[in-house]
């Protein structure tokens, strides 16, 4: 898929995220909007994932370690045709398959495992990747983490394990939007230099602009060519990307827009495409 199409899809995914959060009345817009391009390119151009047979044994796996940004995942899964767009309106409502954090037991196509407690996803990805190696299968495993999430100690157990087991089928992505609930990541508990830390642990590290589709696409492609070590894509992003009043404002980590804010945001996104 070319970059013009991906750009248009990214815009519509942003609109779906904001609309579903407005209808839900709660949720996490900031980190959902920062990860849009990362997921749009991944699902449309790189993952081996068949919407009509999503549990195919040859599929690539995706684990959303920062589970609170599930609106972006739900929007992308719906965009590729896993389930009807209308179901996005059920987000966070009783009986919905679209839980506030991804839930395996609700059987939504594309949700491999329940996530949402930060710091767990990378270990899960290491386990799946180890499993694929054991089966001599070539499935790739993708794990999206947040930058604040790097503060969790359990992440570092997994960071140590992945190169040890030579998991070159594992690609981690860190959405570095620089903000967490209490403020700037560097003020709450600095994680930098994050790229150097992963390098020191033996990872192939690719640093990119996480909203530049060409850079994202090249990073996923390069990761596939690396042998013997896992890859981490350190993606510099903007929290709340695409909505002027949400960008770089940590107050939008976990708050839904009201009607007026939604309309303003949707208009801005439409105008950005002109």
């Amino acid at each position, binding site marked *: 898929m070319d970059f013009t199409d991906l750009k248009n899809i990214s815009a519509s995914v942003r609109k779906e995220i904001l609309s579903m959060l407005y209808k839900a009345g709660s949720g996490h817009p900031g980190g959902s909007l920062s990860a849009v391009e990362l997921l749009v390119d991944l699902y449309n151009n790189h993952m081996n994932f068949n919407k009509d047979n999503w549990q195919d*044994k040859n599929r690539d*796996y995706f684990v959303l370690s920062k589970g609170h940004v599930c609106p972006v995942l739900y929007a992308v899964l719906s965009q590729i045709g896993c389930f009807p767009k209308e179901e996005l309106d059920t987000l966070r409502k009783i009986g919905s398959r679209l839980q506030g954090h991804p*839930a*395996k*037991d609700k059987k939504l196509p594309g949700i*491999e*495992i*329940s*996530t*949402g*407690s930060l*710091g*767990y996803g*990378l*270990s*899960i*990805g*290491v*386990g*799946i*990747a*180890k*499993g*694929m190696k*054991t*089966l001599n299968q070539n499935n790739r495993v993708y794990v999206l983490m947040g930058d604040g999430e790097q503060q969790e*100690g*359990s992440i570092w*157990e*997994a960071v*140590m*394990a992945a190169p040890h*087991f030579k998991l070159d089928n594992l690609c981690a992505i860190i959405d570095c939007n620089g903000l967490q609930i209490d403020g700037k990541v560097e003020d709450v508990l600095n994680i930098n230099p994050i790229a150097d830390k992963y390098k020191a642990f033996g990872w192939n590290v690719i640093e990119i602009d996480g909203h530049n589709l060409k850079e994202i696409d090249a990073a996923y492609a390069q990761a596939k060519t690396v042998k013997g070590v896992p890859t981490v894509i350190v993606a510099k992003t903007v929290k709340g990307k695409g909505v002027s009043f949400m960008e770089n404002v940590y107050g939008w980590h976990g708050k839904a827009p009201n009607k007026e804010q939604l309309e303003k945001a949707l208009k801005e996104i439409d105008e950005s495409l002109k």
Partner: protein
Amino acid sequence: MVKVLGNKATRFGFGEGLVELGKKDNKIFVLGADTVSSVAINEFQNNFPDRFANVGIAETNLLGMAAGLAVAGFTPFVSTYGVFASGRPWEQIRTTICYSNLNVKIGGSHSGLMVGPDGATHQALEEIAIMRCLPNMTVLVPCDVVETKKATMSAAYYDGPVYIRYGRESIPVITEESTPFEIGKAVKMRDGKDVCIAACGSMVYEALVAAEILEKEGIKARVLNIHTIKPIDEQAIISAAKDCGAIVTAEEHQIYGGFGSAVSEVVVKSCPVPMEFVAVNDTFGESGSPADLMVKYGLKDINIVNAVKKVLKRK
């Protein structure tokens, strides 16, 4: 005399069960955390190195990787000391494994006071409580090495997460290959109608010895080996309450929230009768020989006998 067929640590039953499983099922994957030999999973490692991983001293990754392997279609078994298999990664077990109802089997070795000289840090006394409260979790506490092997092999084909609690020290072998074992079904080791002693793990042997002592005093005790704490055999407990009119529970575990609590939940709901609890009385252990510790903390046959006499006064 209680029929004792040998003396062996239950951890070897877990290890032997895994090797047998590994021979016939290539979906069995075993993960260790630097305690591979001491929890007896080294034989599996030697036989099936491709389906084994040592993750080092990193228990949250141990359970996280096991979850990933289950997603990938394997039936992963993890094992390390019970404190570190259940407590440290508790939230991974809850949110990643139980919430997703994954086929992860957790072997909690070195349970109870009988870990001995290592002291309280390594004496797992809380796992039954913190595992049985988790939705989708099955909790097994086998009574000897033979039953531990059966529990391990049954767990592999029992849907969802399973916690198997076993120990480091040699304890009497009191069951045979032919003794029935089915997850969720208590085993009546001895019948009687005056009182029921419901026990799990190492305390089943103590319960049998206690029943012999009591018989000499004219008290006929039923002994139930309740190896499955969850889902618990409600019918066996209700029958015991109705037939015997008094129950004593015995476990090598903290008194609050564990096996005795699980039995009492059934009793008070369906057939209230007087109960007494033989367990570690809301305290940490300490260094010492296993035998000395079991005496000091009140986990011997005589403690069960005394509890029976106490409960019978209230019958």
